[in-house]
């Protein structure tokens, strides 16, 4: 059995590197054109090339989203763009418009084509058709449950990719243009304004359609056993800290399944971490059963923010045992913090010393992005992150 892939979003080059360092087997990114997150930073061709080189050096992969629903005006230039990004080194395209598939397969047979969830594929006959068209992998609609996923795989043997974590759409992907009507922004061309999260009224009473985030961490074992090929995290707009946290947790869950150590205690622990980094409640939605009233919100205020993320580790000087960091949120001498590293190692540390850039002793870290230092005996990996520790 092939080991399941953990697939991460990456909104820019920094986050691509963080995602791959923290356990993603592959990342999906958007270029400056033709991607469904027009509002993300997205990658220039030069950045795609650098990202692919970084990934390939780690024997990992980069998938490029080309998943807008094309209008006539978008067609000119797309073929040149495809050639350009293939030469930059991408491993697969994620598409939703079928006209592009045969062009890619004919001209670039070594590049995979994955069908985006935007196409809302929900059954094995559709998959069977798409296979004949040259689709290598299908990102199934998030409305497809466990039994249907298994049946689709059993009948087609296609590579199946499923979302496991992050924000959910209220409606079938590709089948919602609320954004177009409410804001004039085209939801199927990267402009989605998330109108489903707006506050509405029904008979003059508050009405919302907003849904909770997806969290399938308790079902990773099931997904591996029904032979899902790739587990996808949502969120090309998410922060590096969010990605590092979520990927670390899923990496541990996946690896523990394969080495036989997955148990309820580990799942509970990882879920506490996942919930802390999330800004909404979460739910399993359609995977184990049909979604119901528990998967939605019914009042207007549900977004929360936290200040768990304290600092990013730039470097560790082994000789001096000195850790160099960028401050992200307020902390002070006497706080106990948790340092989690790209390798998966986690240590706890009581902040008993802290220095500014001039190596003057300070008591508090209270300036965003300030470069600071502390001494610590244990070796800290570069790109580690420091978060608040809760017992």
């Amino acid at each position, binding site marked *: 059995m092939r080991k399941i892939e953990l697939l991460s979003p990456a909104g820019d080059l920094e986050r691509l590197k963080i995602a791959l360092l923290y356990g993603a087997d592959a990342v999906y990114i958007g270029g400056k054109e033709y991607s469904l997150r027009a509002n993300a930073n997205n990658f220039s061709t030069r950045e795609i090339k650098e990202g692919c080189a970084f990934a390939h050096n780690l024997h990992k992969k980069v998938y490029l989203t080309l998943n807008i629903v094309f*209008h006539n005006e978008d067609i000119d230039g797309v073929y040149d763009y495809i050639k350009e990004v293939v030469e930059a080194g991408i491993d697969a395209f994620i598409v939703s418009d079928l006209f592009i598939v045969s062009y890619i397969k004919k001209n670039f047979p070594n590049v995979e084509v994955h069908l985006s969830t935007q196409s809302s594929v929900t059954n094995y006959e559709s998959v069977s058709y798409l296979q004949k068209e040259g689709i290598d992998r299908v990102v199934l609609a998030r409305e497809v449950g466990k039994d249907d996923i298994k049946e689709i795989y059993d009948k087609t043997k296609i590579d199946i990719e499923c979302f496991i974590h992050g924000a959910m759409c209220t409606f079938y992907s590709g089948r919602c*243009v609320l954004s177009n009507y409410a804001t004039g922004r085209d939801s*199927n*061309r990267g402009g989605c304004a998330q109108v489903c999260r707006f506050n509405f009224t*029904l008979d003059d009473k508050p009405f919302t*359609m907003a849904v909770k985030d997806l969290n399938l961490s308790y079902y990773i074992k099931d997904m591996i056993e029904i032979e899902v090929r790739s587990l996808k995290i949502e969120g090309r707009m998410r922060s590096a800290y969010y990605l590092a946290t979520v990927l670390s947790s899923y990496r541990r869950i996946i690896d523990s399944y394969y080495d036989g150590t997955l148990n309820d205690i580990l799942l509970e622990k990882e879920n506490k971490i996942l919930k802390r980094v999330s800004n909404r409640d979460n739910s399993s939605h359609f995977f184990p059963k049909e979604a119901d009233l528990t998967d*939605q919100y019914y009042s207007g205020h549900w977004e929360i923010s936290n200040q768990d993320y304290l600092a990013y580790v730039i470097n560790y000087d082994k000789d001096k045992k000195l850790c160099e960091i960028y401050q992200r949120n307020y902390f002070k001498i006497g706080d106990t913090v948790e340092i989690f590293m790209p390798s998966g190692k986690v240590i706890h540390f009581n902040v008993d010393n802290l220095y500014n850039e001039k190596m003057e002793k300070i008591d508090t870290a209270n300036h965003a992005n300030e470069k600071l230092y502390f001494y610590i005996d244990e070796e800290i990996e570069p790109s580690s992150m420091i978060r608040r520790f809760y017992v």
Partner: protein
Amino acid sequence: MQVLVGLNNRNISNYLNYTNSFIIGLKDFSINYLELEIDEIKKIKKDYPNINLFVSINANIFNKDLKILENNLCELDKLNISGIVFYDISILSLKEKLSLKTPLVWSQEHMTTNYNTCNYFYDKGCEYVYLSSEITESEIKEIKEKSKIKIISFFFGYPEVSFSKRNLLTNYFLYHHKNKEKEVYEIKTDDDTYLIKENKLGTRITHGKILNGIIPFKNLSDDVSFGILNEDNIDHELFLKVLEIFKDVLENKKDSKKAQEEISKLFSNSDDGFFYKKTIYKVKE
């Protein structure tokens, strides 16, 4: 162009003064037209053998639905209907598997937006495309110029906005311990109104403003094969008046500008949608 009425009323004879082309939904497989069982569709074709009847199968299809769908497609294929209007791509697979002869209408709602994909589906055996309501008149003209597929477009009615598998109304009323008392509700933001409706397949939202596309209907009369006027959620008598206006414009008995004003008087909550208004693609440069 011919007028294609999205039926909301079983009495076909009411409409025959204005058109002989209709679109209905197949029970349990359709989300925005009058839903009929196969036997009812057979009866319509028997009673009105000369009408153009399109059957909409625009639900998202799941594995459990496929066997029933196959049977229904085989039955429909015997009826000499004018087209199967489909959303789910499985229909293309089933067309080949079942050797279906009925013309197919590619109708992936908001995704039917460019000439290249139209040509792709034409090459795959689709005779028609039902174009997205979010494209402009000039985009429709360009699609006509650059593809071989026959075009169906939407010109009057409440535009489809969103469809969810979730039971958004049922959940809302359950949560608030209230009873769902109406079939259709209005939901509002500060600036806008939408209609929300549920059936066993999920929840459908349409815009609260009626599309009054009589001017592009006239302008595109040589480019579009069928223009859809959907009666859903619209008073039957008013809808018949609208049909008469469209017929008059099509037959050059009435100026389209004047017709637009007449329809606007009948429906104060109407506009011309995206025919002359492009949506924004890139928010940030």
